[in-house]
């Protein structure tokens, strides 16, 4: 895992301000019996530029298997001229495009939506378009990244030779979001099983998983609690963790096992997890990074990890 080093200027925040780029909030809708209905976007975390959100249909009808999803996006670039020339991001006679790059990781699909193009002479520039994802396409989540890219290359002046000139090159991200289309996406993978003769609890950890690609969910990581065990009632899983020391102890130990297993699996890539470099949301690596960075768990050695997990729960419950 490594950061991509761009050898050409890309759009930064001051470039966005100078160009007067303003992006309208995404609007979602769907068709049902020839009528159109809105879907609300409820942001779980992040800001205007980068956020995670869940979709809420007030009618409770929309389901990605049976309904389409219409994404409406619009925006304005008031001073496109600032993006061209030696102080901009492309040569004076290039053409820039606005597009969205989307993916739905759980349905293994990746695609683009092209919104339009503009050159030095056109100003200001507006774009406004609906794009329809047909039913039964999206699964898990829709990652949507609105970008500026080089649509047509130009004939750079000598002072523009440092600018990107290969078409298809992404030159800046204007907005980035991940919309969960199936559930909240934040459910911790705990399941109850009924298996006589087996222990009270255990962790299923998929040692064949790729922590940087595979998701932190039951398919690869799962804490199993066994109803068939005589001590199951003592777990009091209907109670909160605070009221059930045994359940808390199980969860703490299970998380310890999970983090140590990820460390062993990641092997030489463990540092990429600790540093959080370009981790994909929802992956095993990203979940582990979250534990370490946001919850403050100490992964320097096994004893420190176990201690810090327990301390975290003591301090935060």
């Amino acid at each position, binding site marked *: 895992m490594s950061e991509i080093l*761009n050898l050409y200027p890309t759009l930064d925040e001051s470039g966005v301000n100078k160009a007067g780029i303003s992006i309208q909030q995404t609007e979602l809708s769907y068709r049902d019996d020839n009528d159109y209905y809105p879907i609300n976007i409820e942001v779980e975390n992040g800001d205007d530029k980068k956020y995670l959100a869940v979709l809420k249909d007030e009618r409770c009808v929309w389901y990605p298997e049976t309904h389409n999803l219409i994404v409406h996006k619009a925006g304005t670039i008031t001073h496109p001229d600032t993006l061209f020339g030696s102080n901009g991001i492309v040569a004076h006679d290039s053409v820039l495009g606005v*597009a969205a790059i989307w993916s739905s990781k759980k349905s293994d699909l990746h*695609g683009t939506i*092209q919104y339009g193009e503009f050159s030095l002479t056109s100003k200001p520039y507006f774009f406004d378009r609906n794009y329809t994802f047909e039913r*039964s396409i999206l699964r898990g989540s829709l990652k949507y990244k609105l970008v500026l890219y080089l649509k047509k290359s130009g004939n750079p002046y000598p002072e523009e030779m440092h600018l990107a000139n290969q078409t298809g*090159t992404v030159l800046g991200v204007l907005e980035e979001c991940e919309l969960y289309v199936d559930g909240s996406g934040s459910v911790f993978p705990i399941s109850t099983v009924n298996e006589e003769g087996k222990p009270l609890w255990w962790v299923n950890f998929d040692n064949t998983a790729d922590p940087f690609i595979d998701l932190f969910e039951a398919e690869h990581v799962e804490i199993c609690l066994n109803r068939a065990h005589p001590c199951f009632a003592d777990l009091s899983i209907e109670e909160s963790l605070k009221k059930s020391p045994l359940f808390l102890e199980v969860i703490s130990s299970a998380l310890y096992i999970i983090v140590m297993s990820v460390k062993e699996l990641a092997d030489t890539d463990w540092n990429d997890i600790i540093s959080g470099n370009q981790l994909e949301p929802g992956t095993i690596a990203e979940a582990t990074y979250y534990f370490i960075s946001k919850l403050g768990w100490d992964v320097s050695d096994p004893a420190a990890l176990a201690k810090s997990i327990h301390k975290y729960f003591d301090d935060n419950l």
Partner: protein
Amino acid sequence: MNWKEINREDSSDRFDEYCKTKEAKCPEEYKKLRDEILNLFVCTLSEIGIDPVDINTKNYAYQVDYIFGLKFYQLLNDRYSMSIRTASTDGVWRFLSTCVVPDLVEMRYGLDHPDRFWKKPKRIWLRVIWWYIYLSWQGDEESTREILKDNSTDEILQLVDRCGRDGYRVDLYREIMKQYAEMDVTERRKDQVFRKMMVLNTAKVQVIEPALVDGGEIKYVDDLCVYFGYETE
């Protein structure tokens, strides 16, 4: 079709049971689909002119994969409304492989490859051949068959395994498959061009989005081919 799913643990148990009993135990509501799948497989073998014992000799394994794959893909899509959402659901493929036609998977891979039945979701044979055809589809069976006929199981692996972090670029992969088919078969095999193209592509898409290139995916793939010294039509 209401597609059933099965989790890893249950499919593992089901696989172990099949290994012991050699009984498929297909549920009643899946019997019609099972019969149709087996029928397509018999047709495939007779089309190639081989018996089941020959499948893993010479390049027959690939012929089985793509000829049966084409029939299987169309059966699921046209008669059982398979969708992308379903086709990317691990549990659905585990169910088909361990509960509906485990005997068929055994004919192709034997029982020493649990990966192909349930263990590695992206390696389940039925899933792999469905996606191989989907990612190669040229609009109809005839055109798709034409571009696939000279490939080998290596191309299946290289194509389907390269899902990437964000999923498959379907139009790009279909264009790669199309232009690759236009290359001289002996030369491209000797040069291992397909693998090289897929590796270079994986690196390039970090910076360039093929669909956004001036000239789109066609131009992007043209450039990949030229880079390796192949001018396609």
